[in-house]
């Protein structure tokens, strides 16, 4: 039982990270109907930006953790946003209304490019950093297993909740959110009503990239090691999460993220750690076959 609860905590932590990445997939899919393959790599760039920022702060001598976290968060969100914007501007915008496979192939090209770009600039070896936040609460110390919830896990969950709430408010309350929802429904009509569609799409990429950067920072804190390849697997799993929750649905992305995090954690804990990635893919295939609209997605009516 203690073991189970411990895994539950770990799973929710991992799921929060997946959920944050999944939002980027779901939003982009919602608005332009394409899978942004390069999104996982934006997450990876976010992780690298955070890592570098932490190191620089360490050298400068800023050691008060809340301040350091805030600075790192802002830096990596800002710069990852610029990456998100640039990717959309260079690789996707010229292809709007082009041959069906073109944007998808362009996205794959972009993903390969970004991976090798980071490998070239930051090296191919794994990059470890010492734990920034350590310690935690321990419960039920008497038994064979104890349950530990680290401060870091609390930070991850809290930050995710805060960002998700803020984000939900942004989408539902602001004019930007309205423009975005408008473009999702009908891009032509939105343009006719004076919404700057290109800018709205750009902002969608920027928001997705910013959230991916947060996920990147949390990943650095949680795992302590990163390399240029983390975006690939995390990206696929986050995409699986988005599909599982119902692509296009924001709460769906979060729910899907949590589920994927839990499934992966429990699979590793109770079955086999080697095949944990297989579990995620198997779920993706099963969901697509039996419930292509996902858990919270709207059924898609085919336009003939």
């Amino acid at each position, binding site marked *: 039982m203690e073991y189970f609860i411990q895994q539950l905590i770990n799973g929710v932590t991992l799921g929060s990270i997946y959920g944050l990445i999944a939002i980027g997939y779901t939003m982009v899919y919602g608005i332009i109907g394409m899978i942004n393959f390069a999104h996982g790599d934006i997450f990876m760039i976010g992780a690298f930006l955070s890592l570098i920022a932490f190191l620089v702060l360490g050298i400068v001598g800023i050691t008060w953790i809340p301040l350091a976290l805030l600075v790192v968060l802002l830096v990596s969100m800002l710069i990852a946003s610029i990456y998100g914007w640039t990717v959309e501007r260079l690789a996707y915008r010229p292809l709007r209304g082009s041959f069906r496979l073109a944007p998808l192939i362009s996205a794959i090209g972009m993903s390969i490019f970004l991976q090798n770009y980071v490998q070239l600039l930051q090296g191919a070896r794994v990059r470890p950093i010492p734990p920034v936040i350590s310690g935690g609460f321990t419960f039920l110390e008497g038994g064979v297993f104890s349950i530990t919830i680290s401060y870091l896990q609390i930070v991850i969950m809290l930050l995710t909740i805060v960002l998700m709430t803020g984000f939900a408010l942004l989408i539902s309350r602001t004019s930007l959110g309205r423009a975005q929802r408008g473009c999702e429904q009908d891009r032509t009509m939105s343009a006719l009503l004076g919404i700057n569609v290109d800018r709205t799409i750009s902002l969608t990429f920027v928001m997705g990239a910013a959230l991916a950067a947060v996920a990147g920072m949390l990943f650095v804190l949680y795992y302590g090691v990163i390399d240029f390849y983390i975006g690939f697997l995390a990206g696929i799993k986050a995409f699986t999460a988005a599909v599982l929750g119902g692509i296009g649905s924001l709460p769906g992305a979060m729910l899907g993220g949590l589920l994927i995090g839990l499934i992966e954690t429990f699979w590793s804990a109770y079955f086999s750690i080697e095949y944990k990635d297989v579990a995620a893919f198997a779920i993706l295939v099963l969901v697509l076959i039996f419930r292509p609209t996902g858990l919270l997605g709207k*059924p898609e*009516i*085919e336009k*003939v």
Partner: protein
Amino acid sequence: MNQVSSIPPELVIPSGAEPLLTVEHLTMRFGGLIAIDDVSFAAGKGEITAIIGPNGAGKTTLFNCITGFYTPTVGRLTLRARGETFLLERMDGFRIAQKAHVARTFQNIRLFSEMSVLENLIVAQHNELMKASGYTVTGLFGLGGYRKKEREATDLASYWLDKVGLTRLADINAGNLPYGAQRRLEIARAMCIRPTILCLDEPAAGLNPTESHELNKLLNYIKEEHDIGLLLIEHDMSVVMEISDHVIVLDYGVKISDGTPLYVRSDPNVIRAYLGEEETEELPPEIVEDISKDYDPDSIDSDKGGV
């Protein structure tokens, strides 16, 4: 004669023609939205049956049910042709075209635009050619009379190319054709599946008067020479009145009128659906007041550009 009397009134075909397609109690729901509500009618052999109605009346949805793109929520669709009976609502989408030979065109033209005009027509004969090519196995080696069958397919294609006036353009990409020619090619392609019934979704949309007139001639030719039924969604009343034998009017998913063009034209139900009722009496008085206050004919006239 007593057979006729046993037909329920909603399935009567005004000309007394033999029924080709019978639609009974068709209902189509999307979540909470009822797109088609208990519609029944019959379309006759060798006739042009027009389906008209305001936008959003459920015409295209009806087509999608008949051609298998949607599975109806409730209802029965029976097609009797060439000595066989097909229950369309039980068939998979593509099988309706394959087995029952129900052909259709689309409101937004759907051609294979990167393939040549001729190829579009050959692809339409896919199932026959597949059989002739021994499901590709013998065809790959040039065995089993595939060549002969392909020549026959080309002959059928050139027959229809001739009928729609595209013979000279047979080898250019379908996507490079002008709009009107694309519409005609789509009809030719549908005819290449040797249909029992041809469903046309707004074939005259976007055509100029000359093209529209030619289209009417083509449809009449198909009806007379090929002994099939035509089902036609059309907005252009002049086309409907000119060529159709039987008209069905839908409004908000409900059939409101059914009969000859002449009958339908004078049916008060239809007039109400198209021109609207005298509704002011039903509106709350304060709204009526608002409307009459704001109404100022001069301002509307001077403001024409903005609308």
